[in-house]
């Protein structure tokens, strides 16, 4: 079984200015990799480059292999086939990640129907409805029959993110890219969504690329981490290694900050 995603010496430039340089990482099936860094460190750009969706005006060099196929330099037509089968993405803000004018059930059904078409399966209307209900149950959305008829603005933040995860799952991807999926949620909902992601990745044997700036969240969600700073990799290793014995001054600072926060919380309690 090959790597789902292999990034080798990826650099991204915009108007001659380097935004990301020399990033290398790989995710295999069942593996959970965290990409840590502050805002503007190039985490999300790296993820966008991985699926060939960099904003206009940015150029990528190096190598990105998605399910064994090179993405950089490939025609969009060739990459579209990979998207939605090899990889699916969950975004930070579920309110903008869902179409405001479409009922949740219809949005999930759209993805399920497309995936079925690609597999050459024909799916009846009842089959689509059954799959939508199953997916909504899978992400623990209560009362699928009622919520599938709801618009995004009628749902809570946690429910929206669960719906977005259900849409990603409808792709049956082998790799899930989660770009700060819990940042917009409150702490208890965060914990639930993290647990859900963890369960899904384990049970479906997917790869997970988890992007966040939040150390405790990353620590709970992944096995290995890559630390980015100003577009460069500064550290890489298992969660225990990097968080336990950080070597790079930047990582030390990050871990120290998280510890200090924990201590402050502890003292207050």
């Amino acid at each position, binding site marked *: 079984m090959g790597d789902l995603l292999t990034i080798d010496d990826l650099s991204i430039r915009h108007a001659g200015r380097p935004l990301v340089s020399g990033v290398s990482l790989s995710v295999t099936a069942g593996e959970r990799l965290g990409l840590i860094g502050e805002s503007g460190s190039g985490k999300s750009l790296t993820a966008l480059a991985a699926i060939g969706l960099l904003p206009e005006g940015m150029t990528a060099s190096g190598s990105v292999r998605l399910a064994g196929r090179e993405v950089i330099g490939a025609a969009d037509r060739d990459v579209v086939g990979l998207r939605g089968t090899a*990889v699916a993405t969950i*975004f930070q803000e579920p309110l903008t990640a869902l179409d405001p004018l479409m009922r949740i059930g219809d949005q999930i059904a759209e993805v399920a129907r497309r995936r079925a078409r690609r597999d050459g399966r024909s799916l009846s209307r009842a089959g689509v409805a059954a799959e939508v209900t199953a997916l909504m149950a899978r992400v623990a959305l209560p009362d699928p029959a009622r919520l599938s008829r709801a*618009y995004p603005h*009628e749902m809570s933040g946690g429910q929206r993110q669960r719906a977005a995860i259900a849409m990603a799952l409808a792709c049956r991807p082998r790799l899930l890219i989660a770009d700060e999926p819990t940042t917009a949620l409150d702490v208890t909902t965060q914990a639930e969504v993290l647990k859900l992601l963890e369960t899904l990745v384990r049970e479906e044997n997917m790869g997970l690329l988890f992007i966040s700036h939040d150390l405790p969240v990353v620590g709970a969600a992944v096995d290995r981490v890559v630390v980015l700073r100003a577009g460069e990799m500064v550290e890489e290793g298992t969660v225990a290694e990097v968080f336990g014995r950080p070597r790079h001054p930047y990582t030390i600072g990050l871990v120290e900050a998280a510890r200090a926060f924990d201590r402050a919380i502890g003292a207050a309690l």
Partner: protein
Amino acid sequence: MTDAAPALAPPASRRLTPAFLVGAALVGLHVAVGLLTLVWTPYDPAAMTGGRLAPPSLLHWAGTDRLGRDLFTEIMIGARIALAVGSGAVAIAAAIGVTVGLLAAFASRAVDDVLAATLDILIAFPTLLLAMLIVAAGDGANLGTAILAIGIAASAIVARLTRILARRVLAMDYITAARVSGTSWLGIVRIHVLPNIWPTLIVNFALQFGLAVIAEASLSYLGLGAPPPNASWGRLLQEAQATVYTAPFGAIAPGIALVSLVIGLNLFADGLRDVADPTRRRR
């Protein structure tokens, strides 16, 4: 019943404001009258049925024109012409404008810049002047040319609006999510972009409809609209101009018809958004 999910609001009580209802009633009245003229009019519109320039009476509700034809009959037929021109022009403006706007929104920056600049130049041209040029370039004044001219002139504004609205939708995460899950460009337009820009577009179409009605009246007033057998409000106003001091009713009645339709369309447009956009249905 027991889960912690926020209760869905009770079934949509669409917010129908009085202004919207008044607008819908005015538009509905004109549509009904316009349709009625297809099967029945009080008098033969071309027949001389009374004295010349007779003031309004029970027999001739709006009086008669300088040839003794019944003005009320002509105004009723004018409603049909105004509505035909309005819907035809809006359909043309929508077809051209939405297509060009979407192309610009999806195009690369260079193509988009060229299209945007072209649209800005077209918009800088007064609509009526543009329509007059198109009528002049065509094979003389008739109803079809007038519809085409007004539609083309209005399409630039629709195109620019569509481009801006579509750009805003395309910047949203759900578009990226759709692209990540492998949706084609056409799929994105059909599933996400059009439904999301529709509520704003439909309001603009209703406003453009009103503007088209005025534009048609203006063209007819200038003799560039439907030729004489057709009773356009603009032509009625133009004919009444010569006798406005001796028979002012000849200008007042078509004027009321024109103003009431345009006001109705504008009121209707204001309320339409609340009906078209599900996120605005309950507050």
